[in-house]
């Protein structure tokens, strides 16, 4: 079971980073919980995101300076860390999104071929 989980998180890694970037671009500054909730809502419970893994993604993106973080107050007036996308982050998002769509299209065609045999 543990091995299955690591497998999945590895596959998810790049995808999750892209999801986080896109969410931040669409929603503006958000804290970790907000990002996780938003992704869950969008995926309509198809993807069961382990909320903790968001934080690994956030560290990776911050290190590349694609997102930045600052402290602010949450809805319930708690101190929370808000993340927002940076200029390089937007550029990166555009590139990654295009790349993703290309791969998705190729994958789609490939899988259809496979199915029609």
């Amino acid at each position, binding site marked *: 079971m543990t091995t299955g989980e690591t497998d999945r998180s590895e596959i998810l890694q790049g995808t999750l980073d892209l999801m986080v970037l896109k969410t931040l671009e669409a929603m503006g500054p958000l804290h970790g*919980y907000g990002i996780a909730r938003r992704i869950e809502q969008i995926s309509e419970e198809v993807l069961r995101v382990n909320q903790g893994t968001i934080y690994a993604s956030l560290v990776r993106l911050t290190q590349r300076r694609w997102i930045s973080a600052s402290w602010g107050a949450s809805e319930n007036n708690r101190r929370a*860390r808000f993340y927002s996308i940076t200029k390089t982050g937007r550029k990166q998002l555009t590139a990654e999104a295009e790349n993703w769509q290309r791969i998705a299209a190729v994958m789609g065609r490939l899988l259809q071929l496979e199915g029609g045999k």
Partner: protein
Amino acid sequence: MFDWLKILVSRIRALARKRRLDREFDEELESHLALLTEENIRRGMTPEEARRAARVSLGGLSQLRETNRELRGLPWIETLAQDLRYAQRTLRKTPGFTAVAILTMALGIGANTAIFTVIYSVLLRPLPYAKPQELVTWRSNESLLDIDDIRNQANFFTAGGGVNPEVLDYTGGAEPVGVSAGYVDAGLFQVLGVPAMLGRTIAPEEDRPGGPRVVVVGYSFWREYLGGDPSVVGMVLPLSGNRYTVIGVMPASFSVPEYNLDLFVSLRVVYPEAAAYRGVHFMRAFWRLKPGVTLERARVGMAAIDGRLAALYPEAEKGRHTLPVPLQQWVTGDIRPALRVLFAAVCVVLLIACANFASLLMARASARRREMMIRAALGGGRSRLIRQTLTESILLTFLGGLAGLLLARLGTSLLLAAKPAALAHLNRIAMDPAVLAFALAASTLTGLLFGLAPARNAARTEVAGTLKQESRTATTGPAGLAFRQWMIVAEVALAMVLLAGAALLIRTFAHLRAVDPGFNPAHLAAISIQLPAARYSEIPTQTRFRRTLLTELNSLPGIRAAMVGDAPLNGGEVTHSIAFEGRPPVPTGDEPEVDSFCVMGDYFRVMQIPLRTGRLLNDMDREGQPLVAAINEAMARQHFPHQNPIGQRIRWGRETGPPRWMTIVGVVADVKQYSLAEATYPAVFIPFAQSNEAWRRWMSVMVRAPDLSSGRIAAVKGRIWALDSQIPLNRIQSMDELLRRSLAERRFNTFLLGLFAGLAMILCAVGVYGVMSYNVSRRTQEIGIRIAVGARRGDVLRLVMEQGAVLAAAGLSAGTLAAVAVTRWMKSLLFGITPTDPATFAVAVLIMLAVVLLACLVPARRAAKVDPMVALRDE
């Protein structure tokens, strides 16, 4: 894309803000949990359920923290820092162990580094010449004509040149001084390939009989006598009555191998007679191999040239047997065996230190078995545990290495303070980066190699097995104990080798001290004088000066003075071939050779050299009287074995003109002319006044006085300068001092090897003590039982001592065998003793045995004092 750089920077910054980032991340998770809990409550959960559900969907908090730390920082650095911190904490908790371990390593590495510093400077650092690997020389000297011939014939050399050290009087300063001058040919500068620092060196066209009187000065002469004046080129120096123009100054790094020369003049200019004379081989020659030419090829080539020269000039070149050797090897030849032995010795010390160190670590590892077991049970990985233990041992050796470097610095300055004569020509012995690298590598390697076995042993802890075996006291497995006992055997063996070597040197030194130099060196001084050629070119003027000088000096109260060409132990001599009256002539080149000395005054009585038969030379043996000679016992033994030498007549072998037969009138005792270790050669003494060799202008005035205070020396100098104010008197030596100095190098080697042997013994004793006390503490219960069932204290004592004796016996047998195998390498350092002298070895064995047993005695007595009640209650 510089993503990796950005990431690295961010990770490094995270290292510095570790605590704050941890706090912030906790806070972030905290608010995440709170938000999630609220959401869950809104969905209708009870607060309790809501909080638990929130924790579940977020995941394990400590795991999140760990992942966060790993992602944002540099985990291996943090692990290292953690290990180091942990190591430092545990080391500090056991200061005794730490101090012993660090000291052990410091001694091993310190001694090694100090000796390596000297070795590097002496043997390994390349000579300060252009392409030094091309330079060769040979043991035999050459005449200048030989050098010219070889240069013309040997196409395998690109350059060659010779030098002869002489003394010139420099009279341009406050007092006249004798300075050492190299009589060179222009090829010398060419072959060594070192350009002048200021001006230039001697050009080939100046190097001819009747050429311009020019001088190249050495750096130290330039600083000391010319004030380091940068505009010195063109200045005129008065040297031995002639005026020489300075054309260049050599750099500080320049020296001619083995000589300490102040200045350089052309032999053809300053001494044209010698330059044109083939018969006396007085020049040391250096040659540069053509690139690609091997030493073997040069040897073959030189053999051919030897043959041609011998055929052309049999009387001068018959005995030629030229064997080119690399210059580096020749320069370091005298000190090489000693340094090799010393380096081998410090390596043995280091090995013993390492064995001790490994043994200490092993003991510590077994004492910490419980701790390791717990950590393994808690999930500490095997490699992680090994890494942590290794960090600890490397930290220890590193600290030991640092302390060792301090020791080495101290040691090197001590070595330099006692710098033996063979190292005197070295300008600097300093700690190079190479030496630092050596120390660092030595200590790290030691930590790795000798920490690995204990570390693996510690990590091999099988949790269940140890738990079963474990009672209340930590015990080591049989493997650990066997390892430590082998280490002890090895240590004893190694220390035994060193001790045997040191004992051999000490006995050598004692033998040398007991050697009779043949004269009484107490209250005796030698003043070296060279008469300037310009004013004392003829025998009669020389004799007049010498005679007046002795009369003057002997009129001073409390002083007895006499004169000899070359004082004993000063290394100088003039060699003559001789012929005997009434014996068949010997072919040219095969005549026997003897040392010849001119004397004046009551030389033998002043020196207290005993007369064996006949009479001493006296003041009546002067010019115009029958020619006489005294010989030494070595000469009488070798050349008059069945004959009374008194009354026999001899002459120099290669004289031109009518034979000058000298009648032997006395035989005197042998005197050590070169060193105490060297045999005395046959020698002939003749009166200065009867010599016909006007070139023997030098002499040593031997002065014996009950006190040789500076006031008395000043009085003597005053009398000499009253006769001739231009004579340098800067070479005055007390014979006691000279004798001491002739033994200085051996004293130095003996002291060092003795020191290393002492170190080895101490380290060995510490090792034995450690293992034996550990054994005793491990067997406390067993001993308690033995005593309880009736063993006497003496039995227990014997039990432990026997165990020690077994280890000692194994170590000493191995050590004796090893010593027999290796001491022959130090044969050249010994005198009057064979490398496997049984008595010396027996003494070494006994000393080592005593040391080991003494180190066992303390733990043995502790074992004998075990109270059975206490020991058994402990269980």
